[in-house]
């Protein structure tokens, strides 16, 4: 089985709201002191791939990223987690490409890398969170697609997938080639690479391409355009219930709750 995992490097989504700033003119977040990290769902996807390889030994895992040159660090970490090969398409044009551009660039890189049985993408990214890569990539590559998958097992020549739904879960059987989007689950918490493997990963080969190498030219504002980005000011002032004793404060809390619920 030949697996490709797509990986995105993003601004650390855990930075506290009070430190978060946007540049309204550029319509993107300011880097500030924040770290760049691999999007968590991409790591869930890689972890799912690594576990799949543990059940089906003749499996090769490649990782691919489209992003700034710093995204190399995310790919090195993936190699340290024991991905077999890595490729980076450097985005030298626009900092926030639209979802169709991302899918088209990834598709062009995938065609150049070879053929894959299974392509795995995180369900959404912790920055823009458009959640469209898997679907659009499937369309570009003329493959079927299954979303919100949390487990993949080999089943003869096919795959058995488990995915999360609003009300529970579903089991699917699928042929390859296939695109899936991966969501988090208690079974695919990403492993922590060993320090030694992280150091070793910087000695491993890593393919780097520019958009020109793929013969791809980005067309601005071809799909959609972010016309405004702002931080909503909607902090409400919390009324802390008062009272001399805990009993009195909880009584006051009960009354406030009842006021809201009895209005329904």
């Amino acid at each position, binding site marked *: 089985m030949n697996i490709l995992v797509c990986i995105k490097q993003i601004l650390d*989504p855990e930075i506290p*709201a009070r430190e*978060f700033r*946007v540049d309204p003119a550029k319509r993107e977040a300011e880097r500030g002191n924040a770290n760049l990290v691999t999007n968590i*769902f991409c790591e869930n996807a890689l972890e799912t791939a690594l576990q799949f390889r543990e059940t089906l030994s003749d499996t090769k895992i490649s990782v691919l990223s489209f992003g700034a040159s710093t995204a190399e660090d995310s790919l090195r970490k993936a190699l340290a987690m024991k991905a077999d090969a890595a490729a980076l398409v450097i985005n030298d044009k626009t900092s926030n490409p639209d*979802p*169709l551009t991302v899918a088209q660039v990834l598709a062009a890189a995938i065609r150049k890398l070879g053929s894959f049985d299974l392509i795995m993408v995180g369900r*959404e990214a*912790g920055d*823009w*969170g458009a*959640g*469209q890569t898997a*679907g659009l990539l*499937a*369309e570009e590559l003329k493959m*079927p*697609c*299954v*979303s*919100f998958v949390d487990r993949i097992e080999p089943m003869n020549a096919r795959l058995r997938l488990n995915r*999360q739904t*609003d*009300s*529970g*879960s*579903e089991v*699917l059987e699928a*042929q390859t080639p*296939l695109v899936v989007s991966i969501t988090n*689950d*208690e079974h695919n918490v990403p492993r922590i690479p060993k320090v030694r493997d992280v150091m070793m990963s910087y000695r491993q080969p890593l393919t780097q391409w520019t958009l020109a190498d793929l013969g791809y030219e980005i067309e601005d504002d*071809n*799909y*959609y*355009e*972010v*016309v*405004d*980005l*702002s*931080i*909503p000011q909607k902090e*409400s002032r*919390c*009324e*802390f*219930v008062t009272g001399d004793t*805990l009993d009195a*404060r*909880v009584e006051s*809390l009960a*009354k*406030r*709750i*009842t006021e*809201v*619920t*009895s209005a*329904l």
Partner: protein
Amino acid sequence: MNDVVICLISPAGFDRAVQGLAGAGRRLAEKLDSQLTAIVLSQQSPAIAQEVATVVDKVIVVDGSEYQPEQALSALTETCRQLSPAAVVLGNDTYSQEVTPRLAYRLGGAAVGDVVDITVHEQALHVARQVYGGKAQATIELKRTPAVLWTRSRSFGPANRLSEPGNITELSLEIPIDTRTKIVERKRESQSEQRLEEARVIVSGGRGIGGPEPFNDELKPLAELLGAQLAASRAACDAGWMPPTLQVGQTGKKVTPDLYLAIAITGASQHMAGISEAKNIAAINTDPDAPIFKHCRFGIVEDYRKVVPLLRQKLIAIQNSQT
């Protein structure tokens, strides 16, 4: 202007999700001076179609089998092609989220998900959505037609009933069977009949709850007393204390209750992204500086272990005095 189309994929009923979707569709149709058409892809088509017809101008029932990803996508694509809609609006259920970008691609349009507002700006559609885990809000201009949007449909007000119900037609499509993917088993895990997204009151617990037992022994009885649904933060679900179906947050359920009672939840932005449309948020937390309090209408700084048992007594006393 061409029709605005709403798509209902296996709807649970004529609930807040469907009504909000119709409301979003109707208001957009009015802005575009166009009609509102609903495509219903459902096994219970006849019943739901009649209810939907009370709020839309036209209902198209597409012959219903159970949802399969490739089949449903082909059926929606084919139906939309016949209508050449100005915009296609969907809800935020799993299936709608799954088909939206692919449907946009096949129709030559552009997709945006998790939409909370739709406006028309000099002939172009502008939509609002939260980004950066709810820390910022973006306005996005669609550059292709049709716009295909999945929305937080419950946060849109419902549509007015029409004096005359819309026309219902059935469409039979020749969609070739696609066996490349197949749903072979559907497991329902929700604890109760009511869906979390439909709940008017939610009692939710976080990492500070400390384990699965207090959810069952403390929070559940409190929820029952309030006629509320029980929910949890990602930390509590990742720890395995509560099933992922009850997870509220950016990547869990986006809920719109009248009251969200957050117990031992710090209020990380990814959690707040799931409750930004709640009318009232209240919190019980030991840390007065917890971010959750910045979003609260009211709250108490105290250990929930002390508060919740007492709160139940007080609520019972109030309920008894009222009857």
